[in-house]
């Protein structure tokens, strides 16, 4: 049934586009940038404290256009996937114990939900922090699951505005995938990014 609907949507150029990745990679910042560019409104709150997004949040009918081509996106921003959650890590950001424990509890549920939502995606953007080591198991697990589900992937190396960013390392880690370097915060290289979304949509 999903495939039939997907086929109909394909004709209408509609796409459920998931944003996946480890915490603090900039998924919500990028989703906000896209939503603001095309609808004038953002999607979610961002923070330096990891696991700010703890529920799956989405925005429908985000109509984007590039060189005369049109695409209607359902942007699905997911909580960052991690293999461990320690409430004491949140307390380092001056959060009290009770709030930190609440955040940890919500974050664990958010990760479970993010994994469950994988089946509903038609294409996924894996958002990685280009200043960090891309060879983390979480990144590999996410991409492995997308491949197993035959969901097309675009890898985004975010935060290229930072000196430590190393896009070549991200490209070397995922040679089978298209990798685009951007800065979601400053809107750097968004033209190339939008062009890549249209290429990704063709594969969905």
């Amino acid at each position, binding site marked *: 049934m999903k495939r039939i609907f997907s086929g109909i949507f394909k004709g209408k150029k509609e796409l459920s586009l998931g944003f996946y990745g480890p915490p603090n990679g900039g998924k919500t910042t990028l989703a906000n940038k896209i939503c603001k560019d095309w609808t004038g409104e953002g999607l979610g709150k961002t923070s330096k404290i990891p696991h700010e997004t703890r529920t799956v949040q989405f925005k429908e009918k985000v109509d984007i256009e590039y060189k005369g081509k049109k695409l209607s996106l359902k942007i699905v921003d997911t909580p960052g*996937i*991690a*293999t*461990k*959650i*320690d409430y004491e890590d949140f307390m380092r950001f001056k959060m009290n114990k009770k709030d930190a*424990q609440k955040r*940890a*509890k919500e974050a*664990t*549920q958010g*990760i*479970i939900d993010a*994994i*469950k939502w*994988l089946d509903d995606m038609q294409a996924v953007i894996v958002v990685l922090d280009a200043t960090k*080591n891309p*060879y*983390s*198991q*979480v990144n*590999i*697990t996410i991409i*492995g*699951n997308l*491949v*197993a589900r035959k969901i097309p992937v675009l890898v985004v190396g975010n935060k290229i505005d930072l000196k430590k960013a190393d896009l070549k390392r991200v490209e070397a*880690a995922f040679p089978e995938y298209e990798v685009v370097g951007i800065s979601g915060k400053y809107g750097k290289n968004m033209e190339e990014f939008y062009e890549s979304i249209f290429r990704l949509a063709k594969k969905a």
Partner: protein
Amino acid sequence: MAKKKLKGLTIQFIPYTEIETLDSGARIKKLLSIVLGNRIIILQGKLHPEEEARLIEDTMAMVGHVKKFKGIELATINSNSDNLSFFGRFKHSLARALGAQESITIIGPASIVREIKRDPRKIEILMKK
């Protein structure tokens, strides 16, 4: 003078044959029960991506419910067949078809293992003090 208590660290090797016949649920249950016993697993072979995702889901379901359990650290290192010659790749595929498990997976409790740094060809396990 008080004696300083020495903490032990157990590393458990699991040959692939030990999980080969188990279904995904039983595999994950087995691995998590070892990790909950504060042991580090060195598994011959690797889990399927869907099993890895389920391992993360089940781990998250336990955090906050099992005392002092904060999650896991996980890393898999694969053999790299990209640099092999055609004949080498053929032998490699044959070995895989015959069930040889050339990958190694390390799973440890996050309360003991701070980080597993993974590069394409090496794994560095950083322990908590």
